[in-house]
């Protein structure tokens, strides 16, 4: 076993199978929610039922590999990759290992790639495309900026860079368009980079470390070369990867700060008094529920900015789902699951849509194009009346009113 997983040897040996990782609930060391009902929180454990498909099961799988008691197999790969790395387990685990559960799962995936047995075929396929075209959607790199509407002003260089991300560039273009339009309306001058590459998150989550690192290095050099001081992202995955993974995993320490669009806009709305004056509150409020993206919420601890932004919107009432903030249920798209297990991924999203519908909300907003995509797919498949939007889209429509 090479050094990647070996580095976790001591921590791996500390899981004593107590099972706290499998349930949503209040835990002393994470006191954000004092009273919460217990629900099975791990979508993978809930779906596959064997103990191996829980966080504890994956940690013990890592232990088996490190100790030489287990060998690579198709079953082992499925156990390791049938996980969205949503981190709900690590929030429930109250022991020191909780800080490293997701890293341990990602480290097994890295070992699988190094050993030539991983990632899973769909991941390998998008990894190969990424090496050449720098996006996982099998699109040409030179069409990355096609989303930009004609009447939007962008710069080639500047203090602020809008890091659009692959999903908003190629699939959920409305998010990028509305973000740019709002920034224009606010008078914020911002640049976009025509040579922006994928942040590397899909590669990192599926164990394709080396290609991810190339992408990270490229982006840091590109962004710093543009003299950027602040990077704004639409994607929760880009946000966490640029902000946390670049230094922690690649030892890259960029000189720019990274803000999620909701953090930036919430602050700017506050400074400019947007939506606080001059707009009459409608008597009938529209109920909106907010889905915490795993990368923004649990992994980056950004819970309040999106909620404050929603609360600024006139005529909107925020209603919480039974599982929110640290206990938020994953949309099912992350960790390479949407590409490798598409049907199950959609099932997870349907479960989340059902939770949104239980609140009586007509709209579910998120702050991640990847979440929006999977939740939207689920709502359509369910023929649900629930509207699924990105928070920036909701704000844009609200401003226009």
């Amino acid at each position, binding site marked *: 076993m090479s050094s990647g997983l070996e580095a976790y040897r*001591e921590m791996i*040996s*500390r*899981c*004593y*199978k*107590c*099972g*706290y990782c*499998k*349930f949503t*609930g*209040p*835990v*002393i*060391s994470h*006191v954000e929610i*004092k*009273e919460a*009902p*217990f*629900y099975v929180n791990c979508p993978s454990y809930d779906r*596959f*039922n*064997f*103990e*191996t498909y829980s966080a504890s*099961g994956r940690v*013990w*799988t890592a232990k*088996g590999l490190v100790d030489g*008691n*287990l*060998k690579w*197999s198709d*079953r*082992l790969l499925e*156990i390791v990759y049938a996980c969205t790395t949503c981190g709900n387990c690590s929030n429930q*685990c*109250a*022991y*020191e290992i909780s800080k490293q559960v997701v890293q341990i799962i990602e480290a097994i995936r890295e070992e699988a790639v190094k050993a030539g047995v991983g990632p899973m075929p769909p991941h390998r396929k998008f990894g190969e495309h990424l090496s050449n075209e720098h996006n996982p959607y099998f699109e040409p790199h030179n069409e990355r900026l096609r989303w930009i509407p004609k009447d939007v002003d962008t710069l080639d260089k500047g203090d602020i860079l809008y890091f659009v991300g692959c999903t908003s560039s190629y699939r959920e273009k409305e998010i990028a368009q509305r973000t740019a339009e709002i920034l224009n309306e606010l008078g914020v001058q911002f640049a976009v980079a025509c040579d922006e590459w994928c942040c590397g998150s899909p590669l990192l989550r599926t164990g394709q470390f080396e290609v991810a690192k190339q992408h990270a290095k490229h982006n840091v050099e590109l962004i710093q070369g543009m003299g950027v001081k602040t990077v704004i992202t639409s994607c929760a995955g880009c946000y966490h990867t640029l902000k946390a993974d670049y230094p922690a995993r690649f030892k890259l320490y960029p000189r720019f700060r990274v803000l999620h669009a909701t953090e930036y806009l919430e602050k700017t709305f506050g400074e400019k008094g947007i939506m606080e004056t001059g707009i009459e509150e409608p008597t009938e409020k529209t109920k909106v529920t907010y889905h915490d993206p795993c990368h923004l919420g649990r992994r980056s601890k950004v819970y309040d900015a999106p909620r404050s932004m929603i609360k600024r919107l006139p005529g909107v009432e925020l209603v919480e789902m039974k599982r929110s903030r640290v206990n938020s249920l994953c949309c099912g798209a992350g960790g390479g699951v949407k590409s490798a297990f598409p049907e199950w991924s959609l099932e997870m999203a349907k479960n989340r849509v059902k939770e949104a519908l239980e609140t009586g909300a007509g709209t579910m907003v998120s702050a991640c194009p990847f979440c929006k995509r999977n939740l939207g797919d689920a709502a359509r498949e369910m023929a649900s009346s629930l509207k699924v939007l990105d928070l920036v889209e909701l704000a844009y429509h609200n401003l226009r009113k």
Partner: protein
Amino acid sequence: MSRNKHSEVIRALQKIVGKDNVSDSPEELYYYSSDPSTENPHAPEYVVLPRTVEEIQEVVRLANREKIPITPRAGGLTLAGLAIPSSGGILLDLKRMNKIVDVNPNSMYAVVECGVTTGQLKTFLENTFPDLQFSVPHAPPIVSVVANAMVYGSGHVCLKYGTNSDMISGLEVILPTGEVLRTGACAVDNKSWFSKYCLPDFTGLFLGWFGATGIITKCAIELWPKPMIRDAVYYAIDEIDDMVEILLRLTKREVADDIYVNSWTGTSLDRYDMTEKPRGITELYLDVILSARSKEEYDSKRKTVEQIVEEERKKGRRIKSHSPPQSLREYILLVPQPLQFMDLKKGGGSEYLGCYVPTEKVGMAYREGVRIAKSHGFQYLQVIRPFKAGHATAIMYAFSFNHSNPEEVQRLQTVLAEICNSIMELGGIPWKPSPTLQKLILKRADPMFVEFIGKVKTMLDPNGIMAPDKWSTEE
């Protein structure tokens, strides 16, 4: 077993429960082979996840035909090796049997399948029957309601109402030969689970047997009215003998739902890694948990507790009032929380040996626990909890150890054996003993008791397939 036979069995199991619910992959066999205790790991040959009574019956019949041992498992959290398939064979993971079949709010019981977890039932009642509660154990929410009840587990109203085994009002069991037996009123009317009164009571044939006499598939568990107020009065006491005197008085006044005593190592999250008790830290912490339907009722109960404490103080007992941190109050009152102590040795090993003793012997049991642990170089954490107005008291000895250190494992096995013997000397009984400690109990027990265990097992399980290592009377 030959490879061909193994494949045949796999195919047969797949036919019964579906392909996705059977595994003989090394990954599953490895995970299910061990638990955190000092008991030796042993892999099953098959892991099976049944969903219905009929599926379990089919699996049991197959196991009888092929003479394959079965080890049932629910949450797998006895911390005493009781779900380790020490005889190999089929590990029956019962988590998919997770239906809450019925709740009767008038006669106050819930009928649950064997995979229903305490977290699931607690949430269900809070959402659907907020005026009712069941006795929630201080354990992870993944613990099975049925498994907890069948091993004499206790919950947060045990001082008032007894152990969770006392609260069983009916069982549905698949016998080792595959037939379904019901005990209690449901034996007469399968929709009526309110009580086990009046009939010959076969329930005891399945409690404390750890699966050796059958697989409990449904259980009716008594529910209780849920008062609106629940709070606690806290004290710190240095001398165990003073603590026992207080316990004897408090239990008889019947004001508390639950009384919990922790040794200093279990009372604060930042103390768990201390190897020696620091100056100024009291040895024992007493939580008297009260509930009431009105503030007046609560105040009256609290006053009773305070009066008893005051009277004992006048006798010279040193009882300090105590105000635990908020996090600890939540631990005591709100929901079960993980014990940081279990990770003390950072080696994935923890064992929780409980013993039920006469309440007046708790002091001796405590001192013995401290002495034995220290003499073998282990830090101790002890918890004391009286049941049912003090008819018995549980004393739990928790240990953290490094699973990867064979010498430490062996040393702890010695500690556990010494505590087990010492408790029996005091007239107590080890709770949910590991197969290793079961042997010590049988060695000391009356020969007729041991012989009868053998007879019952042979009568119910002629092929010896059900958890054969549990209460094994074979040398």
